[in-house]
């Protein structure tokens, strides 16, 4: 058939958009190298760098959880267990690339080089976004689910229009894939051939709701073909494959090949946040089961076996982690000054009269109190 509604497509090309039956792996659960057609193991130097970032990310995450228990943070959504996704993805970004994270992606932000204390500004309750979005080329940690995906597509499209060598990575959770915005983002990205990669960290849950109640799809990666983009299924606890697949997708995007949807199968080892009670919905043994598949440990075993990591290096890394954690503790102990006058700044480029009036009233109040 011809005409506007009938798209001529090539079956082979279409089939290539489907994910593999099993998640791609480069390093298996025992730390052994696996052959993965089309994907190379990152270089030794890369593997070491990825491992280092995971160890530091994990230490950061542990520290943040501890700080939360002590009451220093308002809330903390740990990404423990998703270390390979976050680090593998973040390190795949070129400096000029952009990242659009969610509230869950602290480790990715730290791995990207954002000051850990700035990462925690939101979660500590000090501000809405602790880092400079433009300087870090990183969108604010996004809570309204899936909304960040559209920002990523728009920015990617703008970069493409400008002819810049920029790709964009949007991070999403498995739950967020049910939102209309995810759909609109995937669809528009494909139509525009925007240089954007969608990485869904399927950690098994949206708060308490397991993936089986979120979708009936074979895998989330099977959604790709419905937008005309490749859907790739990867082992989210294998930092090598996450890194390699995300990097390849970013390169493809940059080269004008259009967007890619990647599903990384992983697991959230902690509760949704410190405020959550995961015992209400986890299956028995589930956490323990996943603990045996710890992504940091897998990488460690692999590097040790490959002779890329020895006791000294591990000790140095641990020390580096401790140093970073200590710095973070110090930073968090400093009481932040919260100037109430900042409430009124940056609502509009130029404060309105209404805001000036309210600011004056608040200033009076504070003066009276003082």
């Amino acid at each position: 058939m011809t005409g506007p509604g009938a798209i001529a497509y090539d079956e082979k090309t279409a089939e290539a958009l489907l994910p593999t039956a099993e998640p791609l792996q480069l390093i298996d659960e025992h730390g052994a190298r696996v052959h993965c057609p089309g994907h190379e193991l990152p270089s030794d130097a890369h593997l070491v760098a990825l491992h280092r970032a995971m160890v530091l990310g994990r230490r950061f995450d542990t520290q943040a959880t501890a700080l939360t228990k002590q009451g220093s943070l308002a809330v903390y959504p740990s990404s423990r267990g998703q270390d390979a996704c976050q680090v593998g993805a973040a390190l795949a970004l070129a400096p000029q690339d952009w990242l659009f994270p969610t509230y869950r992606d602290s480790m990715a932000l730290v791995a990207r080089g954002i000051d850990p204390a700035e990462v925690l500004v939101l979660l500590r309750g000090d501000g809405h976004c602790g880092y400079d979005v433009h300087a870090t080329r990183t969108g604010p940690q996004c809570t309204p689910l899936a909304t960040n995906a559209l920002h990523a597509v728009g920015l990617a499209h703008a970069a493409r229009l400008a002819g810049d060598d920029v790709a964009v990575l949007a991070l999403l959770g498995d739950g967020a894939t049910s939102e209309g915005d995810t759909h609109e983002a995937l669809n528009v990205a494909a139509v525009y051939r925007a240089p954007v990669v969608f990485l869904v960290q399927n950690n098994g849950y949206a708060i308490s709701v397991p993936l089986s109640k979120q979708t009936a799809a074979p895998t989330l990666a099977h959604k790709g073909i419905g937008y005309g983009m490749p859907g790739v299924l990867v082992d989210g606890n294998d930092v090598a494959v996450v890194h390699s697949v995300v990097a390849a997708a970013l390169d493809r995007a940059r080269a004008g090949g259009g967007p890619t949807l990647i599903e990384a199968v992983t697991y959230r080892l902690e509760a949704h946040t410190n405020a959550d009670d995961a015992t209400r919905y986890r299956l028995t043994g589930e956490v323990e089961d996943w603990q045996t598949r710890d992504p940091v440990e897998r990488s460690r075993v692999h590097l040790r076996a490959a002779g890329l990591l020895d006791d000294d290096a591990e000790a140095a890394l641990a020390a580096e982690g401790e140093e970073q954690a200590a710095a973070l503790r110090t930073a968090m102990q400093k009481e932040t000054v919260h100037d109430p006058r900042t409430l009124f700044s940056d609502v509009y480029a130029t404060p309105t009269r209404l805001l000036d009036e309210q600011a004056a009233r608040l200033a009076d109040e504070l003066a009276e109190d003082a």
Partner: protein
Amino acid sequence: MSTPATATTTTPATDPTMTMAQALNTALRDALTDDPNVLVFGEDVGPLGGVFRVTDGLQEQFGDTRVFDTPLAESAIVGTAIGMAMYGLRPVVEMQFDAFAYPAFEQVVSHLAKLRNRTRGGVSLPIVVRIPYGGGIGGVEHHSDSSEAYYTATPGLTVISPGTPQDAYTLLRQAVACPDPVIFLEPKRRYWGKGPVDVDDPGPGMNRAVVRREGTSATVLAYGPMVATALEAAELGLAEGYDLEVVDLRSLSPFDDETVSASVRKTGRAVVVHEAASFGGYGAEVAARVTERCFHHLHAPVARVTGLDVPYPPPRLEEHFLPNPERILDAVANLQWERHLEDQA
């Protein structure tokens, strides 16, 4: 992200006091028990019992066809509720937080609010959309919006907000029984506040305001989270020589002009209080209609004590954003009392 869920459920039966969360939980339980057509669904309302535990234990008791978790899609939650109601069910759905109801806005405004009218009465939608709203709980951004103005500006919606555990129970039962869609705004910072609850007390009717405290100096009009704040202001006001009348609006739309106007005509002065920003906020409607009806009784324009006209701030700044008893009393003090003294002289 979720928020501290410190509310727990106890069997209420004869318990003379319970938290607002428990009262809501009890109301849902009783509604599910009384009417097999009632369903409860939303995000995390099943095994977790909701991030505020308002649906705690309901799935266990009523099974997962009557109380169930939905996929994470708010437009779908409201949109499918509409379809279910067309088939005779009475869905009570939960939006996890105020700002996360926005994805459902089109379904709410274009269908939920209008379908009875659009079908000339053919389709009723007895649906309750429960929305925990407002701030004061130290939530990060998007977890503390006061979104009532969006709903009260929409004809066809009934908008209710309880201020006490008793009203939480009574109003939610009445909302579930209502043949029209109800936006049920739950003041999340009051979830853990306790109060007596008599499940048999029918109250004054879902769309009536009530005088929570009688007084003579001025009328403070409040609802939801601000009822307690207004009452606190009234207590503090005594020391400053004000005997404040506090009216709990309860039903934001439709509005109980009768009760409100009677109070304002009596006191001659009024302050309306809410957490939402002032400009275009619900308080504007209250001020406008009170003025329309009580113009010649008013000694001063109706004052508005509201949140600031800025996006809800981060937790460490929210105390400066939120109305408090002092601000209410400041507003009262500015109600042109000179004229009062002149009148007396």
